[in-house]
């Protein structure tokens, strides 16, 4: 067990350092969601006049989307980095060492999780500085950070799965629009009960991303809604387990090929 933890630690540290050394992998995931938050929270403020809209501040409503978007960027980083390891033969060389597959998978997520945690603190800080009010107080903020980091871990695991299946950075990048599509077809801009177009509302309802957003959102604008939180945490944990399970199978198959 100690050996496994040691291996995870070493790969995770390499992943964190590699991420930190790439400004292009750190700055856009930090700034782009903030820009979108600034623009959309003002551009969509009129939506708060709709009957039944749950808050008077669109910034309060929209802040959770930044965490999801930032996590998706972090996933791109994790996926592209691992694909580069496959592409450059680092994974092949690693296969000759006693490194265990589980250590590689969990370690590769290190950079993305560190970036996800940094993003979560930045978004929360900026949100609070611009007047976001948490109805759940400090406990809600801590819970939101925990859920945000789990979501970042979940997306990063999806990135790792895609990288192991695709094997090149280019192919990983080309699959990310599909993940963005999932985020777009969700309750990111309006609560589901206010979405007028029925096919969009139905897609948003079966889309797990809606529950991630709503889990974060409930802590800001609604309160300790057990159902929304259970769904948010449940979807995040299922995402992590499902993606890591798939990645583990893909890793075994890739190792067999090498």
């Amino acid at each position: 067990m100690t050996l496994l933890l040691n291996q995870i630690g070493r790969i995770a540290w390499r992943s964190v350092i590699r991420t930190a050394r790439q400004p292009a992998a750190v700055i856009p995931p930090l700034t782009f969601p903030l820009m979108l938050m600034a623009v959309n929270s003002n551009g969509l403020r009129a939506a708060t006049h709709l009957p039944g809209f749950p808050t008077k501040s669109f910034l309060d409503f929209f802040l959770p989307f930044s965490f999801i978007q930032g996590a998706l960027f972090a996933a791109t980083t994790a996926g592209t980095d691992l694909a580069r390891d496959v592409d450059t033969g680092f994974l092949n060389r690693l296969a000759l060492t006693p490194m265990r597959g589980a250590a590689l998978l969990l370690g590769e997520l290190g950079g993305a999780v560190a970036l996800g945690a940094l993003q979560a603190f930045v978004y929360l800080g900026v949100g609070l500085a611009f007047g976001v009010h948490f109805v759940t107080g400090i406990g809600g903020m801590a819970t939101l950070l925990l859920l945000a980091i789990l979501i970042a871990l979940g997306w990063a695991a999806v990135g790792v799965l895609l990288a192991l299946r695709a094997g090149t950075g280019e192919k990983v990048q080309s699959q990310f629009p599909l993940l963005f599509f999932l985020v777009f077809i969700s309750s990111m801009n309006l609560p589901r009960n206010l979405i007028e177009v029925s096919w969009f509302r139905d897609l948003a309802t079966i889309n797990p991303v809606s529950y991630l957003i709503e889990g974060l959102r409930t802590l800001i604008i609604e309160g300790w809604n057990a159902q929304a939180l259970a769904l948010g945490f449940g979807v995040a944990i299922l995402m992590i387990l499902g993606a890591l399970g798939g990645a583990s199978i893909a890793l075994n198959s890739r190792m067999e090929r090498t």
Partner: protein
Amino acid sequence: MSGRGRSVALGLAHRQMTTLIKNPSLLFPPMLFPLMNFLAFAGGLSRLRHVPGFNYPGGYTAFQFVFVLLQSAAFGGVFMGFGIARDFENGFARRLLVAAPNRSGLIAGYALGALFRWSMVAAMLTIVALVAGMQIGGNGIDIFGLYGLAVIVNVVGILWASGIAMRFRTVQAAPLMQTPVFMLLFLAPVYVPLSLLQGWIHTVAKANPFTLLLEEGRGLLAGAPLHTASAFLIAFGLVGFFLVWSLRGLRSAERAG
């Protein structure tokens, strides 16, 4: 443009089109993003038409269609800028600079390639919008005006991005091509009419030249154009300004050798 410049432009445009047709991976992402935006905005936000003061006659699908059409046009140009930067990175653009008898034709060639790529996106977007029930209030001339405006936005996008690509000559300059365009587009009345924006974004949107193009595009689609002459004047003004920007970028690339 001289005959030699025309042959350079057509030759390069042909190469861009062939590359695009042979590599679907270059074609689909630019097509997917406008479609995603359109579905998310027109589908997810249509309730906004019930906000007091929302008075666009064409419905929310048409309201969003114009934004996404112009956005896809601008980004169609920006995506071609990525291609130019890639051409510089792998040395192809330098060989083009040596071989082309009239180098200004290179910009025209890339612009034609961008127009070809965007025209496919525009066709797909229009079909999806019509299937989604978009109402068209304008007549043939209005619709021609709307697409004409979008073509000009596409040209402005490629002129801007080519200026950056030729100055920096690396794909790492991609955020520099993309981010200002993104900000310009989203600092306009994207989701609701200008009159419904409040606070700083209203002030910024009012001063943003893209707002006039967007509002005019929406007016043309609904058959109620308001300031067509001003919109086209601004659009052509932008083309003139960014043509100089792009040509100076070309000179910078020539100096770099």
